[in-house]
């Protein structure tokens, strides 16, 4: 089984499955009340230089209240699994990112990310390239507890050349196939529809890559629109996508995805997103935005107060019933 090609990208987070096993063994398995504030969760579980990831992405079911708290506390030199929109744009504009396992950072229909351009073109942020599924597959490998996963994406392209993947000869067929290294996060951040105090979580609608990322994270912070009684979890165990033992902290975060949407609960705040797209065009205007919506506020409650109950109600009412 020959190695045909080695990606030249840096392995930002080398996979050590045996260390991951030892870490997981030591995690508490009892039913413990894990509810904390955003401030406490970020303070206790995220360190400068950590490798973090956010799910789903910045305008859809995004752990935005946690991302805002990371910016507020100025956790820096972060390495980030880079598939995102608004949330990663905010981190980049705040100068907290050192390196990206990059697949897509942009503003979707609003085009390219100005923060990404500034940070990468200036050399302040380095990028290792992957495809969207490539990043999710790397989480899947970690979630399976194996060091790599075979895929047929990325082959023949510069995306693979500038990644840390390898191309090998499949020992069963002799054909070339890509092997992507497992990606184990120091911290995973996932926003869900509901969770109980122990960290059992449910998601409604598409689940993005929450299943894989939750299982690929050494520390897992779950923010939830709603905290529910464990009896609800036990009454429909097949709805549990994240079992409690994976979870380190549970944060009650109503409208936690704002300005992003939450399927069935509230719509995205389009004017707010557009406002950021405008503000992000220069460091100065971005700084004004970040001060107004993050630094000048103590917590998510003050953020929601600033957005205003009237607007939040509108976003709820926009959801088709």
């Amino acid at each position, binding site marked *: 089984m020959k190695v045909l090609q080695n990606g030249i990208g840096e392995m930002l987070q080398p996979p050590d499955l045996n260390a991951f096993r030892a870490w997981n063994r030591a995690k508490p398995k009892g039913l413990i009340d894990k509810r904390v504030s955003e401030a406490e969760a970020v303070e206790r579980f995220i360190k400068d230089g950590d490798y973090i990831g956010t799910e*789903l*992405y910045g*305008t*859809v*079911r995004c752990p935005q209240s946690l991302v805002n708290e990371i910016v507020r506390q100025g956790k820096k030199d972060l390495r980030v699994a880079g*598939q995102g*929109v608004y949330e990663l744009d905010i981190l980049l504009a705040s100068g907290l990112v050192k390196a990206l396992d*990059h*697949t*897509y*950072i*942009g503003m*979707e*229909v609003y085009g*390219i*990310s100005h923060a*990404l*351009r500034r940070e*990468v*073109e200036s*050399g302040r942020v380095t990028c290792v*390239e*992957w*495809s*969207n*599924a*490539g990043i*999710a*597959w790397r989480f*899947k490998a970690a979630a399976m507890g194996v060091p790599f996963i075979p*895929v*047929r*994406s*990325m*082959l*023949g*392209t*510069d*995306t693979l050349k*500038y990644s840390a993947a390898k*191309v090998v000869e499949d020992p069963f067929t002799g054909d*070339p*196939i*890509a092997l992507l290294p497992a990606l184990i996060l120091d911290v995973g951040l996932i926003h869900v529809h509901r969770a109980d105090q122990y960290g059992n979580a449910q998601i409604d*609608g*598409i*689940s*993005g*890559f*929450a*299943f*894989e990322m939750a299982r690929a994270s050494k520390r897992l912070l779950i923010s939830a629109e709603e905290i529910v009684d464990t009896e609800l979890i036990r009454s429909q165990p097949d709805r549990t996508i994240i079992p409690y033992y994976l979870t380190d902290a549970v944060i009650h975060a109503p409208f936690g995805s704002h300005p992003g*949407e939450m*399927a*069935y609960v509230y*719509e*995205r705040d*389009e004017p707010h997103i557009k406002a950021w797209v405008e503000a992000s065009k220069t460091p100065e205007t971005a700084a004004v935005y970040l001060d107004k919506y993050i630094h000048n506020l103590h917590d998510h409650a003050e953020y929601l107060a600033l957005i205003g109950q009237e607007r939040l109600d509108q976003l709820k009412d926009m*959801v*088709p019933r």
Partner: protein
Amino acid sequence: MTELPYNPNELLICTASRVMEDGTTAFIGTGIPMLAGALAQKMHAPNLVSIFEFGGTGAILEDLPLAVGERRSFHRALAASGILDIVETAQRGFVEYGFLGGAQIDPYGNLNSTVIGDHANPKVRLPGSGGGNDVGSHCWRTIAIMSHGKRRFVEKVDFITTPGYLSGPGAREAAGLPPGTGPYRVVTNLAVMGYHPDSKRMILLQTQPGVSVDQVIEETGFELLIADQVTENPPPTAEELRILREEVDRDKFYI
């Protein structure tokens, strides 16, 4: 030239929607592909199954999704799963069409959406592959939607983000990509192009209404093959425009 009854986006959308057959599956990306897919469903392809990257399968595209993961992408869908279920479904060969875009395309349909200039020292850092590389690797037939110009249609892209035919015939298979897959059409504001079955190089098939073959050649930065008979793509019909404006994009988000 007199004022046309449609705008450039409307032309692109109608052209792309006509490319898709009924009873097949299409991997739908943000923007114009969504409108093309929705229009096709309402015109000639009621059984076109829309597949969205982050988990929506078989959604009813009543309202226009603004993002591939948002709730409209699984509105009354037949299934709502996750990104890997979708891409693995494509990897298993279930997805016929995929839509792609990029800042640069070369004669073999290789696309660049990663960087202008050197990767280590970029002139312009672009958004990156996203799902593009996955779509270009696994879908049977990919359709690139571009705006036509010398700086976009180049002999060599700065960075191959998404695989076209790579260096030419047999190159995809040699790289381990699934046999029989690859670029199918390029839809632009000036023309519709395909690929020569033997050389796998881009070939002009249709010009857009009022556009000459010479114009297309002029706006293309590499030697474009020309089909024996280049036809003119019919302009958007009144029915296409009515559905597009009144049903598909009521809020005029794109058109």
